[in-house]
């Protein structure tokens, strides 16, 4: 619907300008293609993190009159497809975007596996690939093979070490004891995170008094929380997926889990988390985070809600937007729509984004938020790999 309206607007605009300049054949718009989940298991995450940030960016760019390409302002036309959370669909969609629709640039998909699956294809067609919602280790090798890929959200190693270092500091200060409960979901994210975190916790002198892993489809978290409560730790760390993040926290509230540090994984940074848990969310630690005091971030949150009606999450949403700012600034820096020149500009330039100043090191953003915490109704970054604006963590004081 939106696409058609936009198309019609652009068609009219093109026609009008063509009549004015007397039938010049120059390209008037930049076609940008996106394929992400509108249906399937990842559709929920895509609806919060992926699509709204893209829509806001297109709205912003066209509101400014377009992207500056060699002194000429060109508006952006967005073409969207649904990948149904499937690799085959995603590959087909990007093929269609690049070889049939002949878009000028693509926005990579949502999700680690799908990003890596379409990377060879995007590389073969010579397009830049600025991945956001892809957290994996071993990216260095990937970059060597496909130098057109850029990675922005960080590594699972960095994320896991973030929470370990944070708790270690609290322990060394004497604010918490060394007893820890460690829980993880038995799926990609939970496994990779606990693989790094468990030995790191042990090396930091933590005693793991309770450890458990649960299947992806788990619904009842009462046994886990009560067993963890009985073990009497000061810290509770769960590398969890959205459904379990909510389930564990609700159960912890019911059981009044007496810990001083409580950490959950994906979706802790979603606005819906605070909505569902109310006052119990206060003091909860989670993966991700933003510089909540930064006026740029505050402006982004406010405007995304106004323009798209969807409140962004406090982790990947602003990064998704920032990745598009990088694309825009790289196009302007290259001064043309030449894909090779834009790839070069992304790799070499430094970019002014809502996430602060960005510069890729060997195609990877090495400074990213690792841990955030709900403080006073906002999810604020408390630990990062070298970013400014982290606030001091607070201890969890009850669930009411």
């Amino acid at each position, binding site marked *: *619907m939106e*696409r058609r309206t936009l198309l019609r607007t652009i068609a009219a605009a093109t026609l009008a300008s063509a009549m004015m300049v007397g039938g010049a054949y120059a390209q008037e718009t930049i076609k940008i293609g996106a394929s992400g989940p*509108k*249906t*399937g*298991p990842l559709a929920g995450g895509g609806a919060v993190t992926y699509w709204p940030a893209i829509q806001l960016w297109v709205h912003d760019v066209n509101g400014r009159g377009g992207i500056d390409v060699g002194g000429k302002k060109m508006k952006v036309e967005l073409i*969207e*497809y*649904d990948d*149904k959370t*499937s*690799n*085959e*669909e995603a*590959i*087909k*969609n990007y*093929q*269609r975007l*690049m*070889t*049939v629709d002949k878009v000028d640039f693509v926005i990579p998909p949502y999700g*680690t*596996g*799908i990003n*890596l*699956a379409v*990377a*060879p294809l995007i590389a*073969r067609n010579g397009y830049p690939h600025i991945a956001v919602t892809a957290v*994996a*280790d*071993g990216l260095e*090798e*990937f970059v060597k*093979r496909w130098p057109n890929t850029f990675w922005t959200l960080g590594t699972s190693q960095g994320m896991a070490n973030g929470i370990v270092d944070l708790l270690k500091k609290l322990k060394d200060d004497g604010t918490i004891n060394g007893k820890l409960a460690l829980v993880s979901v*038995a*799926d*990609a994210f939970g*496994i*990779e995170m606990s*693989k790094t975190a468990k030995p790191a916790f042990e090396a930091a002198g933590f005693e793991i008094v309770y450890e458990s892993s649960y*299947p992806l489809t788990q619904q009842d978290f009462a046994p886990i929380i009560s067993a963890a409560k009985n073990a009497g730790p000061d810290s509770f760390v769960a590398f969890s997926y959205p459904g379990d993040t909510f389930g564990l926290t609700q159960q912890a509230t019911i059981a009044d889990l007496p810990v001083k540090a409580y950490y959950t994984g994906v979706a802790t940074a979603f606005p819906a988390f605070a909505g569902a848990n109310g006052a119990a969310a206060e003091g909860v630690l989670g993966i991700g985070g933003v510089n909540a005091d930064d006026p740029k971030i505050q402006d982004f949150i406010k405007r995304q809600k106004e323009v798209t009606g969807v409140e962004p999450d406090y982790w990947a949403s602003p990064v998704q937007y920032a990745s598009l700012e990088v694309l825009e600034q790289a196009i302007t820096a290259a001064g043309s729509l030449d894909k090779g020149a834009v790839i070069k500009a992304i790799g070499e330039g430094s970019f002014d984004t809502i996430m602060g100043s960005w510069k890729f090191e060997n195609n990877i953003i090495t400074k990213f938020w690792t841990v955030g915490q709900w403080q006073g109704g906002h999810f604020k970054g408390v630990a990062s790999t070298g970013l400014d604006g982290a606030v001091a963590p607070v201890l969890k004081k009850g669930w009411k």
Partner: protein
Amino acid sequence: MTPLLATITRREAGIAVIGAVMLAAAATLPLFDTGFYLSLALNIAMYVVLCTAWTLFSGPTHYISLASAAFFGIGTYSVALGIETLPFPLLVTIGFVASAVLAGLVGIATLRLSGVYFVIFTLGLAELVRQVVTWAQTNFTRGVGLYVFTDFTEAHIYWMLLGLAAVVYVTGWLVNRSRLGFALRIIGNDETVARHVGINTAMAKVALFMISGGFIGIVGAFLAPRFAYVEPPSAFNPMISFQVVIMALLGGTGRLWAPLLGVIPFTILFDQISANFPNHTSLVIGIAFMSVVYLLPRGVVGLIEDMRRMKRKFRIVWTDDAALGKDPAE
């Protein structure tokens, strides 16, 4: 070999020639386009092989298997785990053998079950294998995702799938005319009768389930290089199981070539829907699917057969009338 070749009828030889020509024509596609249309054709080729392999077993026996994703994933993982150390053809063979062995084990355990019990068990199987793989990777390897770096392009994978399609068709034809195929048709019509006439029904079913599962494993192995990164959710995607059943049923399962009639039009139709209605794909596909099931209850093959019968009836009426000296146009 001679007795086999000698029994080929003129009609079968004709079909073989037509099939070979069509296959050869399909194989030239990468010469014209290596972009979107090749990708679409690759998806079609993949589902043609998957659905035909599925029909090999489920067509004659009427057992609905939802285990395709399990075999597919095993094939994918065989390649992903060994790509650094072993040659690709060997890995494909391992994928075939491993899937066939799993099918054999599952077959022995469950093919005595019938109807809905078998469906439920096969549905659980893909999830079970996925959990086992995840568990094994957690405990014995570094991480969950595996990189598959090869020099294969989509054209290579497409050609491999076309070759596999030919093998599956020939296998299906051989099975169909063998004692095994005959036994399976009797089982499909009435299993009790089959047992009473002395057919070892369990053996026959297990044997065919293994062949079918093995082929699906090969498809998974061929597809691994396309994904570059293999992880349990994508390798054991349950959607594969459902899509295979839906497309095979849309084509019809009575004949070996029937799934072809389901896969080609419906892949293209679904693709057009997702290109034109990106925000309402599920809704429109659901409506399209329901109308297809309502209008073509026996699949595309059923439609073709109905049309043939009507034509024949019309011809009979016409000749009868002609014999009576009436004007057929009356």
